[in-house]
């Protein structure tokens, strides 16, 4: 029973199903939510799902983090560092967009007293 769970294949299956479920929870949030803050929360949930998906699928049982220390002198049987570097970059970009979106939201709320994106319809003929 526990052996089955230690299999890389099984872990990858869990990761795919779990992260995609998370991704579509975020998707559902974007489609249904009207409050700007909750839309931003949904975006972050979708991003987290993608990060878990990408990092998770590059993990295999027996591989270690790509850092050498006193006991480990060579760069062998380590997880791929490139996905980690890419996700690091994407997390920082996510924070930047989030802060910018919130500052837009704050200013908009000051001017109009609402932050419901479905009611943002000043722009038209």
């Amino acid at each position, binding site marked *: 029973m526990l052996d089955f769970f230690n299999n*890389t294949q099984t872990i*990858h*299956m869990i990761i*795919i*199903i779990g992260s*995609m*479920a998370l*991704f*579509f*929870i975020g*998707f*559902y949030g974007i*489609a*249904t939510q009207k409050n700007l803050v909750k839309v931003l929360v949904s975006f972050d949930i979708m991003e987290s799902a993608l990060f878990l998906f990408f990092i998770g*699928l*590059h993990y*295999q049982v027996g591989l270690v*983090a*790509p*850092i*050498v*220390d*006193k006991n480990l002198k*060579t*760069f*062998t049987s*380590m997880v*791929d*560092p*490139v*996905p*980690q*570097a*890419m996700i*690091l*970059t994407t997390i*920082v*970009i996510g*924070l*930047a*967009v989030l*802060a*910018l979106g*919130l*500052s*837009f939201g*704050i*200013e908009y709320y*000051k001017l109009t007293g609402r932050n419901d994106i479905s009611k943002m319809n000043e722009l038209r003929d």
Partner: protein
Amino acid sequence: MNLKKVLPLKHIVLSLLSSALLLSVVGLLMQVKTDMFKNVGTIYLNLNMQTAAANAVTSVVTFFRGIDTVGEVTVLFLATSGVALMLSATQRTCDKVVKQESFILNAGSRLLLSVIILFGVYIIIHGHLSPGGGFQGGVVIATAFLLLFLANPNMKLSHGILTLGESLSGATYVLVVIIGLFKMNILLGNFLPHPIGEIGELISGGIIPVVYILVGIKVGSEMSVIVEYFVKEDYYKEVCDA
């Protein structure tokens, strides 16, 4: 009135649609192959000894894919400028000091501040040896200021020093990229000595720790500015509009 009856239907349809998409995408992704022996990451791991950085993620972030990090720093800088553009005009001059913060809270936060900043600096300068680096350490430093602000909202950061640190570290980073062109004939070349034998020591890896220290200063000051704008926004609303 009808709208309220229609709305749940829309939600049900959307959740069904999401689940259908979920099932089909999961079915597709089950075929994703995951052997990594052809990946570029494996080649980086083999080459990584030459950079003399013990943390392979750091050498990928700052050296192999270094221009990504220049872009990333730029994105953070632009976001900070955007937040400042949005929130700065409303930073009214308000000299009211209504909240009398408690002495214990103030002193305690100042005590913790030094410890947290020390931790942030440790994360930054050990970026090439252990997990962490400029971005993480910089944000840790910013959270130290967040703590200070929460304890004492009357506090003001010196914008002159923050701007100086931000501009200088950013400009130096760009110059480091350009110096590589003249010294190594390749942009962002590792022009500082980085003997392989020194791997695992604090001073090793050539420009890699230098880049992460510059990034740390830049991110730390930018994030502090963002935090200050958001906190001050909050404070002014509470105190000055009351």
